[in-house]
């Protein structure tokens, strides 16, 4: 009995190790390669270097500019800039509209409210490729030239739903009698909104904004359809690189993005866990 039990414990332990290796090994490798000084074959470890990081920040500009790569570091940084610009705009717009929608549905009852709520969930359930094609057809049909502008509009069309859901979940957990208490103590509706409802909803709003930011930075499929030929975001740029070989700077960028995502996600979790 005892030995059987031990076998079970060891087996479970081994399985756990394998499980986490499976999930995290590729990510650990990316981080490791970002410090590998071999510019051509990253599988071949040829020493530790910070060169790729220096290169990203424009501190060094010599090592890998060779004919093997069509893309320049300049292009890569440009894609990163585009991604950050898009994410900044979409996060702001989606957060404002998503929060307003959630508050509206929380506060008021109207005909077709349930249907309206279902409509808000739909963009999240729709396959990305369908949404991407639909948006492309729409923009072309409406004669809007593709670029940063269309990426921002397109991403907002589904990010609003994400923010809406996160803020709604927060509001659903809110005690309705707080509004009564506020009114009872002399506050009109606007004051109650400002001093009671909004501060209570805030962790949800911040969580929703962080989620929107991460999804925006990360989105490939939908953005690919509506970005046009001249505009590249980071995911599109990286995807394009894959066809010709991976530039070593990409590992450094991936590592930095990883750090950044980790920080944002931690912040999000912190706000979510903070009981209002």
């Amino acid at each position, binding site marked *: 009995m005892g030995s059987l039990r031990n076998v079970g414990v060891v087996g479970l332990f081994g399985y756990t190790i394998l499980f986490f290796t499976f999930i995290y090994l590729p990510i650990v490798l990316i981080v490791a390669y970002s410090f590998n000084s071999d510019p051509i074959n990253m599988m071949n470890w040829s020493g530790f270097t910070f060169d790729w990081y220096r290169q990203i920040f424009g501190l060094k500009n010599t090592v890998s500019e060779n004919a093997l790569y069509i893309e320049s570091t300049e292009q890569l940084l440009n894609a990163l800039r585009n991604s950050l610009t898009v994410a900044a705009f979409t996060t702001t717009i989606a957060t404002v509209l998503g929060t307003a929608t959630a508050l509206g549905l929380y506060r008021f009852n109207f005909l077709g409210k349930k249907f309206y709520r279902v409509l808000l969930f739909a963009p999240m359930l729709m396959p990305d490729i369908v949404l991407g094609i639909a948006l492309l057809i729409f923009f072309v049909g409406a004669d809007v030239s593709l670029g940063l502008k269309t990426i921002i509009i397109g991403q907002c069309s589904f990010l609003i739903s994400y923010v809406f859901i996160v803020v709604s979940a927060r509001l659903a957990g809110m*005690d309705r*009698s*707080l509004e*009564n*208490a*506020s*009114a*009872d*103590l*002399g*506050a*009109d509706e606007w*004051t109650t909104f400002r001093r*009671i409802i909004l*501060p*209570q909803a805030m962790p949800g709003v911040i969580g929703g904004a962080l989620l929107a930011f991460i999804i925006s930075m990360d989105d490939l499929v939908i953005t690919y359809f509506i970005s046009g030929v001249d505009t590249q975001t980071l995911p599109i740029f990286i995807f394009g690189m894959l066809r010709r070989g991976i530039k070593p700077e990409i590992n450094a960028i991936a590592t930095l993005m990883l750090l950044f995502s980790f920080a944002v996600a931690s912040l999000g979790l912190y706000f979510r866990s903070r*009981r*209002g």
Partner: protein
Amino acid sequence: MGTHIVQLERATKAFALPEGGTITALHGIDLDVERNEFLTLLGPSGCGKTTLLHAISGFVQLDAGKVRIDGDDVSDRPPHRRPVNTVFQNYALFPHMNVGNNVGYALDIAGTERKERNQRVGAALELVGLAGLENRLPRQLSGGQQQRVALARAIIARPKLLLLDEPLSALDRNLRQAMQIELKTLQAELGISFIFVTHDQEEALTMSDRLAVLNKGVIQQIDTSRTVYDRPTNAFVASFIGASNLFEGTAARSGGNTLIATADGLRIEAACSGGWKPGDGAAATALIRPEQFSLVGPGAKGPTIGIDIEQVVFTGLNFQIHGHTPSGRRIVAIIAAVRQADVASAEADGKARLGYDPAAVHLLPDDGTAAAEMAA
């Protein structure tokens, strides 16, 4: 202005039910609340007591009728423009604000000058025994402390009237009893009227100057605790307040007294001093409170009821004897603890003879309809 702090005139409110139809929560209620009185609204859940409270605070708009507070018709005013404050059932403290900001909320809204505001917050907290806890968050307080913060928050703006919506229901028994006394003291100290909603009859009897018993959107009786207990106007009030033995039957005159003959052959004798006197042959219900019974021997004078004992419970203060008559009618009697020897021998026999004083028997019209006719 008039002497009443609150006057409800034919207050009526019906709610639509989700499955269709409506339910009448307030059925043309007239109510006058005296200044400086502790009035309790008591009733089973769904009786309309909370709706009545909300009609005064403004969270419920009446379908018909008027609400006057201190003589002013406030029927059309929203809650934030009525000079009343409420202690909510679940306290409804603002979780993102510390105790000081919770208590000072009404003053902050009113724009009270900072120095005075802080002074009054300190004073209010001191009044409820929480001096110096301004910087704590509500979730760092015990249930009893949260209750006190809610109380301090509701009285800081010096309302003309304080409404309390089952505020003690979440507290454990000991704390609840301590808070009952404290609330009563606080009410006397503040010199304002309290309207207190509860479904706990013991709480209602303990605290109130007057007690209003509600059922189905109608005030069944409103009077002092003592009168409501001793002289309930109908069977609903009698059975809702305190334990009671009710004998429904037909009245007949017998000498100076009235006899109630029940269908199962009991004859209950009532003196009917004051209160309702049924005519010959009228339907009536006799009420005998359990503590009105005494254990008597076979040769006792006066009316008696014989019972078979099912169970004797010793509560510390007294014995509760649960039994039934030969016809199966359930009877509860409470016998003082000093009569231990008699109770023991009756318990050994399995039988007891219960005597009562006809003067202590209270007669009720047979149902609520008759009570309403009598009041009109």
